[in-house]
């Protein structure tokens, strides 16, 4: 059973605190999308409403195109499990401006909190996973700076690492299972893309 004590909403709010034009954020579908939006919707957020498995590769393409900006990918364990190979692809490029933060509550939140593979083994007939360690996978893929965050006392360092540490940085954050309000950004993908480019490039 998950013994996580960290709450995702205040944590994401701290990570994004004081976000300026140099911070480009991509969030995976579902909870991570609502989390970054709860911290304050902004044009340089790209919150995904679908495209499961896309955020890490999208963050890499963006990080390579904008090497002087900080690119932060925030997503969940279910989304990350769908695109493990993207971590190896990130490692081939070693983007110094890319940080990936995976909020791991060991559940598929969008479909009713079924266990993901990061849930422990032998956790009952309906709630067992494999104890999959995504930070170890990221390190094994070639992202040397990969670590797991579990305690409130580690959050300040997590924020610094996500915002400023030389990348690629991978942080797995064990968070509680919570029922939270949906805080939704605009849904239209073309609008989200255009406002992002307008803010970043001055034209859509």
């Amino acid at each position, binding site marked *: 059973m998950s013994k996580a004590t960290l709450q995702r909403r205040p944590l994401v709010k701290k990570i994004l605190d004081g976000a300026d034009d140099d911070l480009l954020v991509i969030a995976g579908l579902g909870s991570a999308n609502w989390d970054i939006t709860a911290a304050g919707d902004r044009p340089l957020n790209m919150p995904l409403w679908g495209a499961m498995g896309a955020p890490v590769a999208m963050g890499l393409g*963006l990080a390579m*195109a904008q090497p002087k900006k900080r690119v932060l990918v925030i997503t969940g364990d279910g989304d990350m499990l769908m695109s493990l190979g993207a971590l190896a*692809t990130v490692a081939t490029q070693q983007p110094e401006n890319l940080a990936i933060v995976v909020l791991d509550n060991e559940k598929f939140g969008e479909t009713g909190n079924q266990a993901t593979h990061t849930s422990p083994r032998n956790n009952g007939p309906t709630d067992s996973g494999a104890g999959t360690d995504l930070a170890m996978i990221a390190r094994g893929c070639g992202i040397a700076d990969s670590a797991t965050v579990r305690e409130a006392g580690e959050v300040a360092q997590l924020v610094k690492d996500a915002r400023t540490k030389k990348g690629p940085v991978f942080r797995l954050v064990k968070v509680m299972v919570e029922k939270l309000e949906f805080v939704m950004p605009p849904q239209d993908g073309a609008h989200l893309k255009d406002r992002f480019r307008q803010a970043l490039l001055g034209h859509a």
Partner: protein
Amino acid sequence: MNAVATIDWHDQIFDILQDHDIKQVYHVPDAGHGKLIEACQKSNSIRTVPLTTEEEGIPLAAGAWLGGQRSVLLMQSSGVGNTINLMGLTKTLRFPFLTLITMRGDYGEFNSWQYPMGQGTPKVLEAMGVLLYSVDNAAEVKATVDAAARSAFNGGQAVAVLLRQKLIGIKNFGKK
């Protein structure tokens, strides 16, 4: 040997990618695209990214476009099926997308395992709203890829160029 057979269409595609200011090239290993991939890897103006699966190429292209750069995905028809779900991003976000696809399971293919995805490739791409260009003649590669790049980057479309097996040559593993 006639004049057409001496056209180096790989070099021509490389030139067109440069003409259209392509900065990121995503690929899996591929004999058909091999010479083009090597030219891109040696280029100072293009960044090449090897993928673990073709699917990664779609969000990579979306991310590059968000950041103001143009890209292209090089793959075989056998990889097209891996991209289909995320190919929907090209419609949802409406961003320019270009992929060049070397066909298998096409003209004279010897490997029966290549036929299902090869024959399905045009249909599934069409189903996802991707605009198709097809070329089986070396003399038309340059103009076709150029037109496809214009449709993508000027016209804002998701575009695939099918480089037919008749163009690439039949892979026969020593069989006659």
